[in-house]
């Protein structure tokens, strides 16, 4: 009997996959992100992104240089592709610690309630009061510019958004009878949180992770633009846009084209997040 049952009713994972494959938003996001990831990993640059050619500085887009060249004669397309690796890697790495910490803080404070929850609530209120960029800029200022500063800044302040969302979700789950039933049935707190609550809030956290990677990427690019992020000559979309601002009125391509790379990656992440939310029926 069980054999027939498994054949007619597919396992949850299979059902999930079928739903995912029918979701155009998710597919579009996944395709864009696969292309961006491939560019980041293999970095197929037509020219050496560091090679200067001062005789051909600020050349407009042409068949030889699709995106034109910058003030040092470097091929902009090559630098845009090389920057994909830098900026995406930083955004993804910087998102890891906040994800884990925020998930844990949200779960524990939502489940435990009481004074612990009160303290977490006040800490969250405090951090939320700071304009986010100001907070990140101050930490980067104190920890030193560049990659390291960005990781420290996000480890310190990035967990807030997860903690808020996951805490609210955990609280609403705790009000449903089954959580109390699980604890009343003799399971330890650790087991209730780890085996029962965690799987229920994880999809929400993963959807948020996509948005956060997008926001961190935009922040990394913005810090680069402000001169506080990735330091030259490492290719970075933000510093490229900032370099081009000097010649904006006459050489439009230097600033505008690297921005398109940011937008494309961001749209990919956004669609991926929205698609996952649809498939998990979080909305």
């Amino acid at each position, binding site marked *: 009997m069980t054999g027939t049952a498994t054949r007619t009713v597919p396992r949850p994972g299979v059902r999930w996959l079928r739903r995912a494959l029918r979701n155009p938003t998710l597919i579009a996001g996944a395709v864009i992100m696969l292309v961006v990831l491939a560019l980041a990993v293999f970095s197929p640059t037509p020219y050496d992104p560091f090679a200067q050619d001062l005789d051909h500085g600020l050349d407009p887009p042409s068949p030889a240089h699709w995106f034109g060249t910058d003030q040092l004669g470097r091929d902009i397309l090559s630098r845009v592709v090389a920057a994909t690796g830098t900026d995406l890697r930083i955004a993804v790495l910087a998102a890891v610690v906040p994800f884990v910490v925020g998930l844990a803080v949200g779960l524990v404070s939502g489940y435990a309630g009481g004074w612990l929850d009160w303290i977490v609530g006040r800490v969250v209120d405090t951090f939320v009061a700071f304009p986010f960029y100001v907070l990140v800029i101050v930490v980067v200022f104190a920890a030193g510019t560049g990659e390291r500063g960005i990781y420290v800044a996000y480890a310190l302040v990035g967990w807030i958004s997860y903690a808020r969302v996951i805490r609210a979700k955990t609280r609403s789950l705790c009000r449903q009878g089954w959580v109390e039933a699980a604890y009343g049935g003799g399971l330890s707190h650790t087991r209730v949180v780890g085996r029962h609550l965690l799987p229920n809030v994880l999809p929400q956290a993963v959807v948020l992770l996509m948005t956060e990677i997008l926001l961190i990427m935009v922040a990394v690019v913005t810090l680069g633009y402000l001169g506080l992020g990735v330091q030259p000559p490492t290719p970075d979309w933000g510093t490229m846009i900032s370099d081009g601002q000097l010649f904006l009125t006459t050489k439009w391509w230097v600033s505008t084209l690297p921005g398109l790379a940011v937008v494309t990656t961001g749209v990919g*992440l956004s669609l991926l997040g929205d698609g996952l939310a649809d498939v998990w029926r979080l909305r």
Partner: protein
Amino acid sequence: MRWVGRSLLSVVPVVVGVVLCVFFLIRIVPGDPAAMILGDQATQASIDALHEQLGLDLPLGTQLWNWLVGVFARGDIGTSLITSQPVAGLVWSRAGITAGLVLLAVGFTVLLAVPLALLAATHAGSWLDQLVRVVPTIGMAMPAFWVGLLLILVFGVNLHWLPVGGVGTGPGEPLRSLVLPAFTVALGMSPPLVRSLREQLLEVLDADFVVTLRAARLPRWRVNSHVLRNAAVPTVSLLGLNIAYLIGGTLVIEKVFAINGMGALLFSSISSRDFPVVQGIALVLALVVVVVSLLTEALVALLDPRIRAA
């Protein structure tokens, strides 16, 4: 009245938290602020001297006590290392232009987000709704400073409609110079606002009173005017929730348009490693956000009696 007292009371831990946070933020981050301010050429003697000037040689408890007494008892948030002026005065001298920019940006945000959200909500499910939902997805992925540069290219360089850098003098000029930067901030602010507002409006459109108005065959625009009045509450509270984000965005946009406000002060203090000024700006902005949130909460309570009762 009880509501006012309770709200004021709830702000106290946040204000204390903000003041503590600014103090610890600079100190728990790995690295010595004095060594960082002085750079590579620092000698041990110069580092020690700066430690003494900044009070960093004192025990942490004493430092914290001095900071708290300074802030709460004397309103003293530090002195610039570069100009030796009080930080509060420096911030105040730049606050006007930034405040103007923020206000104008809030105005543009409302003018952009409310009609779009209403359009999407009243046509829920149609292609118009889809469009209003897709465009913000792209909008969220655009770095605001890059959008600012695009606007400079289009409206400043190609069309010559608006000035694109600095703040002009003369009648009406300051306002004209702020239009493009404020619009840039508003473009960045609108996507999340349109999304949340659309959801809220859908709820209002489902409410019994709207069904009744429709059943009474009121023309659509009159139904919408009632819906809009009810949408004022979520709009104000969403703006309040996003004010921190908006101020942060404004500082970056100041740099794009070469506006000499608090953003310019922040970035110049960062490059001159003027640590008390950076710390002071963070503190002042966070306190502004706390006050603005409190005011919007009060406004929401004024607009919606249900919240006062709760």
